[in-house]
């Protein structure tokens, strides 16, 4: 008999969830792959909190905690670990672990003892953190592991890992496997690994639930966790991305005209970085240690001065304010959408260099609104972007870029935390950018589907280029999370 930690029986919250049956045992890692995002938030909320259900029963450790007749909004012992860390950055690691917890009964803080206890916990995980190290000074991987320990100390029945590949590098993902295995097998912790990529899920989990449109569409046991079976569920992706004619445009690329050059760049963890992006080329810069991409994006976007080296654009100084350059930070559906502007203004506000008197000429804007109606609906000038979901806002960002027609686009992790259908849409946008002659630089800590739109993969190590692969060599790269073009 296996000890069951969580069980959901026929749980329904229309229109988000329909007849969800799911069970998790103690000491196992189970993956949940959302082919689309519908219902994932609600499902995770059900794990955390006993919210009102349309129908169904929820059991935690074999005790009925929620059903359609008696929802009391109480919390379940579940920890969610996602991009936004639950640790307090200005406090030390041991304070976060031992002081900031519900059952802490200590009135006098014995710093040395806490330090020793912390080392005892970290030792089996192969980590060492100095006593009194502040959380802000540790790496994102260490933060992740500290959160596991915090969940363990809080006796969480379940730890949900949500989209961790968006902030943990490929190298760290590989290091994570033995840690998760130790915590699940030795400490009996249960993990629900929520992600969008089956390669990533298969790497960690022993079982896997596939979800689409708020339904569990397949429960995969270990013997079924293969690419062949997944392809039957993600055939739309294969047909529109992997097998379609779009692959032709990436066949061979002549690298003649140089557009962007990073020359002996030194800044923060960036250590003598040399990189050239050519015209009409898409380059993926994989920061497999998660050390430099944010610093590099700051250098490009905020006009910071590098300690050494230069950034040249068309042989001149790089000016991010130019309309021929577009910089897309992580989560652009939040950071690049202005809620005080209407949907139409959000779409058009970087196109003023293309259309004269755009802001004064209402006829121009009405004509453009008419053209955009098919994708974004009617009455765009009256619509508030915050009324729409993530997919719509993401579409707005990339449509704005299409209208702006930049020559160079730098994007950070474009496929992070988006479902399969959104990824397909993003890929079609990147195809359009390429067809219009834009050069694209993708900064990533994990590949996701970046290689589907890339001509070249540049892998960084210790802040500099380690090696690079061209499209016909991509199969030589063995990453954990991501698809490789056929």
């Amino acid at each position: 008999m296996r000890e069951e930690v969580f069980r959901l029986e026929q749980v329904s919250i229309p229109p988000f969830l329909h007849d969800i049956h799911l069970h998790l045992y103690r000491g196992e890692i189970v993956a949940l792959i959302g082919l689309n995002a519908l219902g994932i938030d609600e499902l995770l909320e059900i794990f955390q909190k006993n919210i009102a259900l349309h129908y169904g029963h929820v059991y935690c450790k074999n005790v009925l905690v929620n059903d359609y007749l008696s929802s009391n909004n109480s919390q379940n012992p579940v920890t969610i670990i996602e991009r936004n860390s639950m640790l307090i950055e200005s406090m030390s690691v041991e304070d976060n672990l031992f002081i900031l917890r519900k059952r802490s009964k200590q009135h006098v803080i014995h710093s040395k003892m806490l330090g020793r206890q912390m080392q005892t916990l970290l030792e089996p995980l192969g980590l060492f953190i100095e006593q009194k190290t502040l959380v802000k000074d540790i790496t994102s991987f260490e933060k992740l592991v500290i959160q596991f320990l915090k969940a363990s100390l809080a006796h969480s029945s379940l730890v949900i890992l949500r989209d961790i590949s968006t902030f943990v590098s490929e190298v760290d993902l590989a290091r994570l496997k033995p840690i998760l295995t130790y915590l699940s097998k030795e400490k009996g912790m249960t993990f629900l690994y929520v992600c969008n990529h089956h390669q990533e899920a298969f790497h960690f989990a022993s079982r896997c639930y596939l979800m689409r449109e708020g339904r569990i569409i397949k429960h995969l046991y270990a013997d079924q966790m293969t690419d062949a079976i997944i392809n039957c569920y993600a055939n739309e992706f294969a047909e529109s991305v992997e097998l379609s004619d779009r692959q032709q445009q990436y066949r061979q690329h002549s690298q003649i005209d140089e557009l962007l050059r990073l020359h002996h760049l030194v800044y923060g963890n960036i250590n003598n970085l040399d990189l050239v992006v050519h015209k009409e080329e898409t380059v993926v810069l994989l920061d497999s240690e998660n050390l430099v991409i944010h610093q590099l994006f700051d250098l490009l976007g905020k006009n910071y001065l590098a300690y050494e080296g230069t950034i040249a654009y068309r042989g001149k100084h790089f000016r991010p304010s130019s309309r021929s350059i577009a910089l897309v930070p992580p989560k652009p559906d939040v950071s690049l959408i202005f809620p005080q502007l209407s949907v139409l203004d959000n779409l058009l506000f970087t196109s003023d260099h293309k259309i004269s008197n755009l802001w004064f000429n209402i006829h121009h804007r009405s004509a453009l609104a008419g053209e955009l109606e098919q994708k974004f609906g009617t009455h765009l000038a009256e619509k508030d972007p915050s009324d729409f979901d993530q997919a719509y806002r993401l579409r707005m960002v990339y449509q704005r870029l299409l209208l702006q027609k930049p020559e160079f686009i730098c994007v950070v992790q474009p496929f992070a935390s988006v479902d399969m259908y959104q990824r397909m849409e993003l890929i079609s946008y990147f195809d359009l950018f390429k067809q219009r002659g834009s050069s694209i630089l993708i900064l990533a800590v994990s590949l996701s589907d970046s290689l589907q739109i890339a001509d070249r993969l540049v892998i960084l190590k210790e802040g500099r280029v380690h090696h690079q692969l061209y499209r016909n060599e991509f199969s030589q790269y063995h990453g954990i999370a991501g698809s490789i073009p056929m």
Partner: protein
Amino acid sequence: MAKRARYLEMRVLLLALFLTSLIMLSLLLALLYRQNRIASPVFLLLVAAFTFGAAIGSYYAIYLPYARTKHIMQLFASGYTFNAIVDDKVPLNREMVDLNKTLETLLNTDQIMNASKRQAQFLALQNQINPHFLYNTLEGIRSEALLAGLDSVATMTEALSTFFRYTISNVENLVSLQQELENTKNYFFIQQFRFGNRIKLHISFDGEQEHEVLQYRIPKLTLQPIVENCIVHGLECKVGEGNLYIRIETSQSRLFITVRDDGVGMPDDVLQQMQSKLSTRSFDYVKRDEHQGGIALVNVNNRIKLLFGEQYGLTVTSRIGVGTDVAISLPRSKGEEPVS
């Protein structure tokens, strides 16, 4: 009075009386204040406090129970639940309680159980006299008799008679998992005479002693109809080898059996119809005599729910080219009678 106060009707009446009295009292006090018989307007605060109290009280005593009853009625109407309407803690009125009691009698579990069981036996019998089934079985016997020795004919005949005996003779509701698995293997063995090694059965136990698990009690004819469905609708139409997997796992209180095939799978619309039939409860299928696919699954699902409760039963997932999974959730019980 206290007994009658459990009805929503009475609560609404009491609230109306209270509010009417409060309004009358407020008017009286206002009149007295106007005539300077009361010096201070403090009574307004008292009236406000009573009104606030009435609002809070009516939210918890009237609105919430009403919302709950309404939700239960919606679920009953859509077929999600039968029991909850009978156990309604705050019914609308006494007549509603009487109506629920009548409904309970109509939904008498034993009667439906018998009808459902008869339906299961009928389906099984129908298969036995199904010309194709009989023809194929006899064809198997004949060809075996012609080509080989009498041993295999004897084995096959024995399998067939064991299957008939298990299906018809035993009248109890619950059997051990071992008996049910034996019958399923027997059925599969008969089918293998037709399909040869093209179909294979794999049974696996996860996480517990096999011997222990085999003693658990499950409704009779739970597995065989599902396996039959997998063969007829999944593996028969498949080109090449087909596999059928039965996976058994247990938790503290549940026995989970997953029957999975790697056959042709179901189209989405058929799957949706099936899922809808399984998630809601209706006994319409007992009356129907047309040859509709999936009746056996609905029957098994309803029998499990009738025997053990609404939280148990079947779930189906399927995909063209991948196959079909039927997951059965049952209570972990070794006793003779289920915990219903």
